[in-house]
């Protein structure tokens, strides 16, 4: 695969907004639905171009998701754009009943997820969202890792006809996705080859996983880095291949460890090919005050943290 330049970093919200606007230009079914979140979802341009197709329900998340389901009922393709903590926390029952159970083609776009709101604190953090939405049947869960993958995710979700949760990163990330990378449900993107350990990461943790792999490579430890943009449905084959071909799996996500990527990978391997694992994320605590970069480092969601987890795994936990 091609090597990707990782010097510059990007806020994926712009890529999301640009792609949504481009799609809306060719498909009049596309509408945006927001909860006073025009600015925070970068929808100012969309509103300028399609004023009627931006439905703002005000600060009312239950209504937000219900209205989107109603729009889908009548043939629209609604992209619900709202801060991830409020979208998933406040409207979880609407996500379950009105969207997933009712099979409504609604794309739920969780903006500024994880700890993107840093110093604003746990009310504004969305580390629970992946656990919550993974528990809902018939809902695809996508976490893109960079602008290109964000654009691919928007295109896929618009065409899929499926209830979808799409987590749009705000924390600035470098481009990590090779131009020839696939984007499809149940399909991981292999970013590095290695047969000693596998690191499976998503979103903001991909570049940190790549940095960790480079450092471990200098020590002669071969790390396979997998980007898993679809957590649901997960790439079972890639996970089981990692379990069989490498000595263990480290997962890394900007989310609580209770039910996100790590839990999905663990459930996959434990029933088919048990293998040592380390699950990196936020343990079941509310974060202290700090900006996003500080908090990621604080919880070991860093190249250092991933390196340490790999070593610990290879040492069998004796370190």
């Amino acid at each position, binding site marked *: 695969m091609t090597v990707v330049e990782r010097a510059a970093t990007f806020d994926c919200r712009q890529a999301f907004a640009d792609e949504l606007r481009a799609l809306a230009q060719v498909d009049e079914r596309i509408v945006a639905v927001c909860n006073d979140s025009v600015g925070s979802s970068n929808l100012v341009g969309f509103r300028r171009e399609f004023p*009627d197709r931006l439905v703002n329900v005000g600060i009312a998340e239950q*209504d937000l998701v219900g209205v989107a389901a*109603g729009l889908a009922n*009548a043939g629209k393709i609604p992209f619900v754009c709202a801060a991830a903590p409020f979208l998933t926390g406040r409207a979880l029952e609407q996500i379950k009943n009105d969207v997933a159970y009712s099979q409504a083609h609604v794309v739920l776009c969780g903006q500024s997820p994880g700890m993107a709101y840093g110093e604003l604190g746990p009310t504004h953090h969305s580390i629970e969202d992946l656990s919550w939405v993974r528990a809902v049947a018939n809902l695809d869960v996508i976490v893109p890792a960079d602008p290109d993958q964000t654009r691919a995710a928007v295109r896929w979700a618009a065409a899929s006809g499926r209830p979808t949760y799409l987590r749009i990163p705000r924390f600035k990330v470098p481009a990590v996705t090779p131009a020839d990378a696939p984007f499809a449900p149940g399909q991981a993107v292999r970013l590095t080859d290695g047969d000693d350990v596998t690191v499976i990461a998503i979103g903001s943790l991909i570049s940190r996983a790549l940095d960790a792999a480079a450092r471990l490579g200098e020590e002669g430890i071969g790390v396979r880095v997998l980007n898993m943009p679809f957590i649901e449905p997960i790439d079972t084959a890639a996970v089981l291949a990692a379990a069989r071909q490498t000595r263990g799996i480290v997962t890394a996500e900007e989310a609580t460890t209770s039910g996100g990527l790590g839990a999905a990978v663990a459930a996959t391997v434990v029933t088919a090919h048990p293998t040592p694992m380390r699950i990196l994320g936020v343990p079941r605590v509310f974060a202290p005050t700090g900006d996003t970069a500080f908090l990621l480092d604080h919880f070991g969601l860093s190249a250092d943290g991933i390196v340490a987890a790999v070593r610990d795994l290879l040492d069998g936990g004796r370190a």
Partner: protein
Amino acid sequence: MLPSDPDVSARYRDTAARIRAADTDAAAVELRRIAREVRRSIVRMIDRAQMGHIGGDLSVTDILVTCFWGALSLDPRQPAWPERDRFILSKGHCAAALYSTLAHAGFFHSAELDTFMAPMSALNGHPNKIKVPGVETNTGALGHGFPVATGCAIAARLAGQTWRTVVVLGDGEMQEGSNWEAAMTASHYGLASLTAVVDRNRLQQGARTEETKRLEPLADKWRSFGWEVREVDGHDHAALLRALGPSTAGQPVAVIANTIKGKGVSFMEDRVEWHHKVPTREQVDLALAELAA
């Protein structure tokens, strides 16, 4: 998805056309007859399943029948017809009333009613749009249907289409905050194609609404949210027909339908325990006899 019943749906089309062409009083006579049949089916379904929400089913029946035969533009043979009117029963626990109505209109065969809540039946205790034609969204959790209906009405406007949306709410359900979020949205967008009907039977599961959490002054609440309010006897088909007419003020319409829980069965009427009590064999016979009169 259950298939439609061609004979019954053809009869529905003719009957609905006759009702719409008749004067209001003549229409009401016909609607009363259909409502009696729908109520009898409800009692039989709950008797067979030994489960259900009979009190609310019987309070909402006249609203359902008036909507389906007198007000809405629907085609049981084409339940997904894009320009159909949308009907959403937000009080999804009254699924037996909805299923009975749908079967009498030919959306599916009435024999299916015998399977109500049986293992693997399409007729779950709360309606499922994937399995049951005529269901627009999966309700059951309260406070969901109204926002979805609001989205439907916005979509109709965006498409420049004139079809209408009617959502039927339980009165106890008005205690859910999501409904008031939707009431604000519909009013803000001036959704004149949207009608919300409140089945105002004044009882909820555990007690009277006013003892549980006061709703009154309910009409004033709707008015203060910018809605045109029509308050009617929810068992008077002629009054319901008029109330379900289009908006005259360019705003969404709230119909407060004053009803009696358990309507039509004397020993169930206005009694809180009949929210989801199951009648005995003798009570079923008595109820069916009263509903035949």
